[in-house]
């Protein structure tokens, strides 16, 4: 009897998969605990997305104002040095300048967000190694970081869209007065907002998951030894 018990305790079991709720709890706490650090990561995302969103919004509003052919607005546009004739050389030059600005802001997003997420994960390689030593499954670690990245990514992107949009609206209202509101292309702006959210979430997820995946797949000693 005693011998039987001894053999049973010597068998190797299989680690249980923890429920998703536990992963959500751990990752949420993790974001909350390092609030200061999370805030810096999130503000990186906010800035990048706000820049993109403000460029998009502003371009859309100016386009729509030009099309409106409202005499008072035309005057204000000309005062700002914007050519109202869509066929003029100055106009096409401006269009290519705008395209360049949008490409630039997309690049800022790409670099800014992936950098913020990469840093916030790679500085925790030692922690990932330790968690593996404590018996965490690779999948569980990846799940935690997936959730953390999506918390921060979604929050950052949504705040970024709101900040970028509001600031642009504020500045344009100062420039063109309140009659601007009848010409705001709401549908287009909402579409841009959704696109920005998709881009921001996608970038923050990939930026966060790739290093976490790499660390989770390593042997624990290698993950702990890695100095970043």
């Amino acid at each position, binding site marked *: 009897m005693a011998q039987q018990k001894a053999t049973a305790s*010597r068998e*190797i079991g*299989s*680690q249980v998969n923890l429920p998703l709720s536990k992963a959500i709890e751990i990752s949420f706490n993790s974001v909350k605990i390092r609030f200061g650090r999370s805030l810096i990561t999130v503000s990186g995302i906010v800035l990048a997305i706000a820049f993109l969103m403000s460029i998009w919004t502003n371009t859309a509003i100016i386009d729509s104002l030009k099309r409106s052919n409202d005499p008072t607005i035309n005057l204000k546009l000309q005062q700002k040095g914007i050519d109202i004739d869509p066929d003029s050389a100055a106009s096409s030059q401006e269009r290519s300048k705008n395209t360049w600005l949008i490409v630039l802001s997309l690049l800022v997003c790409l670099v800014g967000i992936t950098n913020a997420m990469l840093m916030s994960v790679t500085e925790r390689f030692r*922690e990932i190694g330790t968690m593996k*030593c*404590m018996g965490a499954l*690779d999948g569980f670690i990846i799940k935690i970081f997936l959730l953390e990245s999506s918390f921060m990514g979604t929050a950052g992107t949504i705040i970024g869209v709101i900040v970028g949009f509001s600031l642009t609206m504020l500045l344009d209202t100062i420039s063109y007065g309140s009659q601007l509101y009848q010409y705001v292309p709401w549908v287009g702006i909402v579409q841009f907002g959704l696109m920005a959210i998709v881009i921001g979430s996608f970038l923050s997820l990939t930026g966060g998951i790739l290093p976490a995946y790499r660390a989770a797949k390593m*042997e624990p000693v290698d993950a702990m030894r890695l100095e970043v």
Partner: protein
Amino acid sequence: MAVVRTQDIKKIYEMGDVTVEALKGVDLEVEVGEYISIMGPSGSGKSTLFNMIGGLDKPTSGKVYIDDVDVAQLDAYELAWLRCRKIGYIFQSFNLIPVMTALENVTLPMVFAGLTSDEARDKGVILLGKVGLGERISHKPYELSGGQQQRVAVARAFANDPAIILADEPTGNLDLVTGTEIIELLRQMNKEYGATVISATHDHKMLSVSDRVVWVRDGVVDRIVNREDLNIRVGTIDGSA
């Protein structure tokens, strides 16, 4: 009954064009309940051997058996189970999760083992009491001294009642007095819980509590000394120094 057995393990690191043979075939048997120290200068391969025993790294060739099970044959789930319940780890640099309190650090392995939060908390409080930190359970690592952090790590290592405790230079970052305290704590836990303690160290304070000392040099086991024979040797070292 051997709880850990290694069979001719070799580890070769390839760094660019240079290959370094860190272990050149090590055979070792560790008995249940033993307190064993692996000693050797840095670069001798003792840390590498230690990592192999703990299933933290894979040998290039040779086999490691824990409870007569070949570690290389285990899948990811079984390996995680082994690390979670069979082995408790203690590191030179403590490796506590910096944002978690002492209690949360101790309960983390229990969470991975599937305990409920309440069970884990109760057990964690008891363990922290045993290592003498009953009053500081809600302190973060940076609010604790090095010795206290290592005590938290000891409590964490015992979280799931492991059969084996692996300590890698547990006193390496501690001063003389604190180091001695940690060694005594380990010895006391070893007796109380009956866990086998394997530690890699070059701390000579470790000698007096070890049942056996394995000397590693240049990737091979140089000699294995039992405690009875050890006291005399320590005497001669002290005498000649």
